[in-house]
């Protein structure tokens, strides 16, 4: 049943994305100041928000693991981090493409860009640390500690960036600005694509979570078999 639900959501997300791409490329007009390139924004911001959601969840699941010591939270934290990273990459890459056209450079050491890169590096370190620890309890505990530090670090970097002058365009969503800076049709499209990406992320997380739980079962069976053989 759960498998079917995951499959159905996956197909739904795929169809939704196709529909969104159709609207983005063929129905919405070019942006007044930027022309066609503004369309990467439909993946730039939703990608960022999806990644941020994943990293926030990773922090929450890690705290839950440390308080309950139940392995399902650890598997979930691993799954959301692993799924969050490609979305962070989507955010960085679309941002670079946009920067090449609008700013004329692929990368600038703007605080927001730097912060996004730092958080991607920190979470890549998280996955490396997981791979480096063979013992499940030790791995769960240590990676949970890292996830909590990482989340505090990311918030810290992000907030500290708001104090600096930045080259990055300011917020456009009505929820941040009170309206008036973005066409409602375009903002609506952003919400659509965010939903599509979140669905996709949800499906990927469910699959990865399943795999992680299976892997743990196999590991414990293997240890049990080893104990009997001695």
């Amino acid at each position: 049943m759960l498998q079917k639900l995951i499959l159905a959501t996956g197909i739904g997300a795929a169809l939704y994305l196709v529909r969104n791409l159709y609207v983005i490329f063929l129905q919405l007009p070019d942006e007044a100041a930027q022309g066609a390139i503004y369309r990467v924004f439909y993946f730039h911001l939703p990608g960022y928000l999806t990644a941020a959601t994943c990293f926030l969840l990773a922090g929450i699941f890690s705290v839950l693991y440390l308080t309950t010591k139940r392995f399902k939270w650890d598997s979930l934290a691993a799954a959301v981090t692993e799924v969050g990273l490609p979305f962070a990459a989507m955010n960085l890459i679309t941002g670079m493409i946009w920067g090449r056209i609008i700013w004329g450079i692929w990368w600038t050491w703007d605080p927001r860009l730097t912060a996004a890169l730092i958080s991607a590096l920190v979470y890549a370190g998280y996955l490396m640390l997981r791979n480096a620890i063979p013992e499940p309890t030790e791995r769960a505990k240590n990676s949970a500690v890292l996830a909590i530090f990482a989340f505090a670090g990311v918030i810290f970097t992000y907030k500290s960036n708001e104090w600096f002058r930045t080259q990055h365009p300011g917020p456009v969503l009505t929820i941040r600005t009170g309206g008036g800076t973005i066409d409602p049709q375009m903002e609506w499209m952003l919400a659509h694509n965010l939903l599509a990406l979140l669905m996709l992320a949800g499906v990927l997380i469910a699959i990865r979570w399943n795999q992680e739980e299976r892997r743990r079962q196999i590991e414990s069976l293997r240890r049990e078999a080893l104990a009997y053989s001695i």
Partner: protein
Amino acid sequence: MIAAALQVARKDLTSELRTKESLNAALSLTVVLLLLFSFAFDPTSEETRQWAGGLLWLVYSFAAVLIVSRAFARELPNDCLEALRASPVPASSIFLGKALASFLLLLGVELTALPAFAVFYNVNVGAHPLALAAALGLATWGLVVIGTTFGAVTVNLQLRELMLPVLIYPLTIPALIAAIELTGASITGAPPLSIWYRLLAGFDIIFTALALGLADVILTD
């Protein structure tokens, strides 16, 4: 808790000052790096002042990894870490003591390397002594807190020496940026911005609190 932490720090400092294993390595590494950077950049040009602060803190952060990686690894032979955990000292005291010892060692290395840096690169580092002192004190503590935490997290790993820098450098970037700015201000004579002091203080408070709160979890299996 503080008294026990001071005991742990004293023990660590005594054993380090007797063997000098990480001190010697960190000191010679800083000199070698200062030498190497002089080939990458022209150390006599006027522009040196602009990036000298960043260069100095890169050198310091390399030294920091050498120092903090020993903090817990030192306890591995003869299972001293197990004995330390079994002792009636709270985990947060062990952690605080180790961080304190690493802090003093790293500060010693930094203060020794500072005159060498000033001489090699022909810069006056003391235009704003307060900014320099804040950078040295607060950023070093920030580096040491993150480093000690992840030194403890990675202490049982085979890939310990590889994982530690990968984990701590990205996390220490905010503190390093602030330290670079303050040190840079002290070298060029530009007025230091108060935001960097606040950034460093906030960084230290948040991560010290997190590390002490999680010390129990990190140090017990």
